[in-house]
């Protein structure tokens, strides 16, 4: 489906654009981290150690107000003093209020975000493209019905819709044994399971498929009227043939570009759901931000580190989206066409 010419365009656009390289680098780092988190993380992200709570990242200092009572001359004196909390090389990005390692948590959190982002987007693409192409290709009543339904879906703010659906279905999630731990490659101290937040994945897909449906429909509408579609039909090509061989391949570019943008949006949505406590995930960027929020004034890093991770992921994915758009769009008719 990817022609040599498309590859050529992708490559030349990549060599031209610094931002595209940056986007790929960022995403590669995040992907790598997510895949090999048990090998890379210095600690078990769920390990608590209250003696070591609220340790700041290396290079920062933090003070904590401590109240101690002392007996001075037979009277109880309450002393408030500022205590300096020492940073430690063991926790390069500090620890949270329960003494869990922030770096390890952020590394493992990437798994949740990417799982939800990629799987959620895939389901949304399949659903949206199927509906959109059916609507656009057949038109008429089918189109009216499907698109009215899509408009209704769009009328709800996505977060509200997601929360409503989760409220309806509960928070089903599956625990999948982590192969790296199970095979003994990673330390057995790491968590044994990867949590697959099933409901959340389905819900973010249901909230976002409409965008794909709209784009796919628009593409199908314009491809449908091309003469090569007429030609295929005049040769006896069935609807399925026309859709698979002509409509789908020619609609793919904008769908692909949209998908990258939607992955970022879905990662944000998952974070919001976790932040609000609706996803049930205990190890995700959004969840950690929610945890760290109450310590923002004293231990800012608890929320900031996962927050920066989200920002980096979204930026990286969007840069890749821009690259795909620039590389794929003009390549169809414009470039190198002989007169």
């Amino acid at each position, binding site marked *: 489906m990817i022609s040599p010419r498309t590859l050529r365009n992708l490559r030349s656009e990549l060599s031209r654009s610094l931002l595209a390289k940056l986007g790929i680098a960022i995403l590669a780092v995040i992907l790598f981290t997510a895949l090999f988190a048990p090998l890379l993380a210095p600690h078990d992200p769920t390990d608590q150690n209250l003696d070591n709570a609220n340790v700041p990242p290396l290079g920062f200092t933090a003070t904590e107000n401590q109240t101690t009572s002392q007996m001075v001359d037979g009277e109880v004196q309450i002393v408030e003093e500022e205590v300096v909390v020492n940073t430690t090389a063991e926790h390069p990005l500090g620890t949270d209020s329960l003494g869990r390692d922030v770096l390890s948590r952020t590394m493992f959190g990437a798994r949740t975000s990417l799982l939800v982002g990629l799987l959620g987007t895939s389901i949304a693409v399949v659903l949206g493209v199927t509906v959109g192409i059916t609507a656009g290709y057949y038109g008429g009543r089918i189109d009216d019905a499907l698109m009215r339904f899509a408009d209704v879906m769009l009328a709800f703010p996505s977060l509200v819709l997601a929360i409503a659906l989760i409220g309806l279905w509960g928070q089903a999630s599956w625990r999948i044994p982590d192969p790296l731990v199970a095979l003994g490659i990673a330390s057995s101290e790491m968590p044994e399971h990867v949590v697959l937040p099933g409901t959340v994945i389905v819900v973010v897909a249901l909230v976002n498929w409409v965008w794909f449906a709209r784009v796919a429909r628009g593409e199908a509408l314009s491809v449908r009227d*091309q003469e*090569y579609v*007429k*030609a295929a039909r*005049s040769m006896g*090509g069935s609807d399925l043939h026309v859709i698979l061989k002509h409509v789908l391949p020619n609609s793919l570019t904008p769908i692909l570009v949209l998908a990258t943008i939607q992955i970022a949006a879905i990662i944000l949505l998952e974070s919001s759901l976790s932040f609000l406590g609706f996803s049930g995930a205990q190890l995700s960027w959004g969840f950690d931000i929610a945890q760290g929020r109450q310590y923002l004034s004293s231990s800012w890093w608890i929320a900031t580190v996962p927050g920066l991770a989200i920002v980096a992921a979204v930026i990286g994915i969007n840069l890749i989206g821009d690259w795909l758009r620039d590389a794929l769009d003009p390549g169809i008719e414009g470039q190198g066409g002989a007169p």
Partner: protein
Amino acid sequence: MTDPLVTVDGLEKYYYENDTLLDRLTGAEREAVRAVDGVSFEVREGETLGVVGESGCGKSTLAETLMRLREPTGGSVTFDGDPVYELSGDDMDAFRRRAQVMFQDPFSSLDPRMTAGEIITEPLAIHGVGTGAERRERAETLLEEVGLSADQIDRYPHEFSGGQRQRIGFARALAIDPEFVVLDEPVSALDVSVQAQVLNLLADMQAERDLTYLFIAHDLSVVRHISDRVAVMYLGEIVEIGPTEEIFEDPQHPYTKALLESVPRADTDERDRVVETIRGDVPSPRDPPSGCSFRTRCPELIQPPWLDAPQAAFREISEFRTRIENGDIDVDTRWEQVGDPDREDRAAFVDSLYAEAFDEDLPDDDEGTVREAIRALADGDREAAAATLRERYRSPCEAVDPALPAGEHPSACLLNEQPDDVEAAREEWEADRDAPGVGASSR
């Protein structure tokens, strides 16, 4: 004479506007667009039938309906004895193999994401003919046959020129060995120099493979050398059909004559080519003229029996009448031009409009009638103005619908031979009316 391969009988394709659910609920009148309005002809085995007409005359709809890419709203098409619109299953499959189309647009007729090889072998893939390797071989042979080279098989459409793309489109149409090919303006998007090459290729392949062509074009010069017979279409109807030589040497229908008088210039597009001798726009197929559909532009519009005006004058009057009837004359603007906001100086109004509308010298009687009509217009009574003109200048062409008789070279014009029922209708119309009074008397 050989047998017909394709017989088209009374084919109709109407589109309906205002046909959504909402329109139906609100009871809006559905409006028919008569793209193809009762067309009958035959394509004989081994011949090329050219179909010519201006853009919007329904010739492409005719091709698509004939190929059953659209369902007709009436009439039938018979292909080698089989009723095309009743075929299904294997029979339909066979029709889809035996009849192919080559399209007009060198850009949109080839899928930009397929290679030349994939494009040419698509019909083979659809019908499951041959293995992958065999198909590829066939595509290579076809590429050579249409004048390209076999090693271009993996190129994409954007790597070819317009003429080369049309060759690929033609190779695709030939891939499955059809007997009948509809050529839908195959060269009209190409440069003139390239047109001739492609036309020659089409002719060569026809001779080599005994193909039957239906060749659609918007100008006569293109079909002249490739067609055995030519059908001329106007507003969804065939107005004249006959052997190519006769159509060019001895055209019968005023529209065909006008088309022939136009000299197509290579460097202009379709719209500009429309001939000087045919004035005015093609009427909308939503609301075709009564009687003969060409009458709004016909240079030979027939005068009523009581009239004997110079033809040019009669034509100007008729055109002026059409403008009034369609409400195309803006009375307010005209008054402004006259510079009389109080609208008192009717004579100035009449002079101004008369001078604008008439180049010809009208006979006195007619000038009187026309001025009378303009006076009514100045008073804001468009109906009366139209009635005044209609009374004196109605033509049999607007009351009687000419038919296309049978025969080798018929034409749908009242000036030529018409079937008995049309002649009868015309006589009845003429007998029914008395000559009206002449407007000049009431001046």
